């Protein structure tokens, strides 16, 4: 009888372990693929994998990149469902905000935006999660066309 109980416990444990394996977290590669789908019609160039802890003020991830004149780029972001944070991407030149996935004035979130770049130079990307929540997200930069 004792052995039967042990075997049942072991089987339950095995099931638990494998079920946990099946309901696995979204991988960053899967998020990149989803970003690619959002940025449809554009050619993928770069991805930025963002994982930030909760914090006040909200922690940020920053990257610099070179963008080229007379080029239309598409930026896209996808949040992982495994963490609560909703990512915001902001694009800056040296001094000003040029584009964002969250327009504060309208309160509108948009998972993609395009930039018509008119000046070759170094630009800066800033990612953070709204309300300083912890989050996992991916942002992508894609090439749309030469203007």
């Amino acid at each position, binding site marked *: 009888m004792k052995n039967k109980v*042990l075997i049942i416990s072991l089987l339950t444990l095995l099931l638990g372990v494998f079920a*946990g394996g099946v309901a696995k977290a979204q991988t960053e590669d899967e998020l990149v693929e989803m970003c690619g789908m959002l940025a449809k019609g554009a050619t993928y160039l770069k991805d930025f994998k963002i994982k930030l802890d909760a914090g006040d003020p909200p922690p940020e991830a920053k990257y*610099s*990149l070179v963008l080229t004149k007379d080029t239309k780029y598409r930026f896209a972001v996808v949040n992982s469902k495994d963490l609560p944070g909703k990512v915001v991407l902001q694009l800056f030149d040296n001094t000003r905000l040029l*584009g964002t996935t969250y327009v504060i004035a309208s309160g509108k979130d948009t998972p993609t935006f*395009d*930039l*018509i770049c008119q000046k070759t130079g170094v630009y800066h990307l800033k990612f953070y999660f709204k309300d300083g929540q912890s989050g996992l997200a991916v942002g992508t930069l894609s090439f749309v*066309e030469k203007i």
Partner: protein
Amino acid sequence: MFKKLIYFVALTLVFGGCSSCGNKGVDADQEFANLDSAIEEEVVFDPSVVQEMAENVASPVEIAALIKSLKVPFSKDILAPTKNIDGLNTSFKRAIGFGVYGADLGYINMYSQNSMVLDYITGIKTLADGLKVGQFFDFTTLKRLATNKENIDSLMHISTQNFNKIDAHLKETNRSSLSCVIVAGVWIEGLYLSCQVASIIDSDKMNESIGEQKIAFSTLYKMLSLYKKDPNISELVEDMKELKTIYDEITISYEIGEPDMVEENGVITFKQNDKSNVNITDDQLKRIREAIIKVRNKQIGG
């Protein structure tokens, strides 16, 4: 005995399961710690600087797109010959070659020259294996896409993604200098292709684009200079000094404008209204062309 065995299996599962759940974050932190310490030993600077500077310095897709937008017909004669790949037999040469042939692959893909893709991805796979990053180069899928003439977008997407994964892996395994050399290879070939095209067509846009490479070159030159302790990189920096002299002469002026936001087909578009003017003379263009031919051919034995 049987009971003991069951307990043992159960404990193994519990601890094995838990460790696999929790390890990812620990390993990632450990990797970053290793990376930081390794870089500190190599040169003294903020390790995030290299990572930041390296993003999108040279994009083969964009250079190829510019060439194609000028309606310049495809020319295989301007590409690096794959027969030279066997001669790239050190990590440095393989890394430079990886960048050069990667840029060529971007050009080939942009023109949908699928018949040439196989030759180039085979060569690039050889270089990737030599750099011990072949596992990130999805040769099988790329070969299938090329031979079946499947979606060219997928071919470009996967090859770019593979390059980015290799770049990330090199940085994570304390080989940032090689990642930097690959970026240099891409940039060198991009400028080489641009100069070859500029020599056969009269295009202000192309000439201006060559002049604007001053910005990417400045970033790249600084990046490479951080690794000057490596004799191969030091020699490359030395070889690039001529280009630096010419680019130092070129000036770019800017006019600042306010950006606009419009919604087109449901996509929000931000339009930058700044303007830049590149002052580059025919003589400077000629000298850049001569200098880049010298640098590029020395690296790939052309």
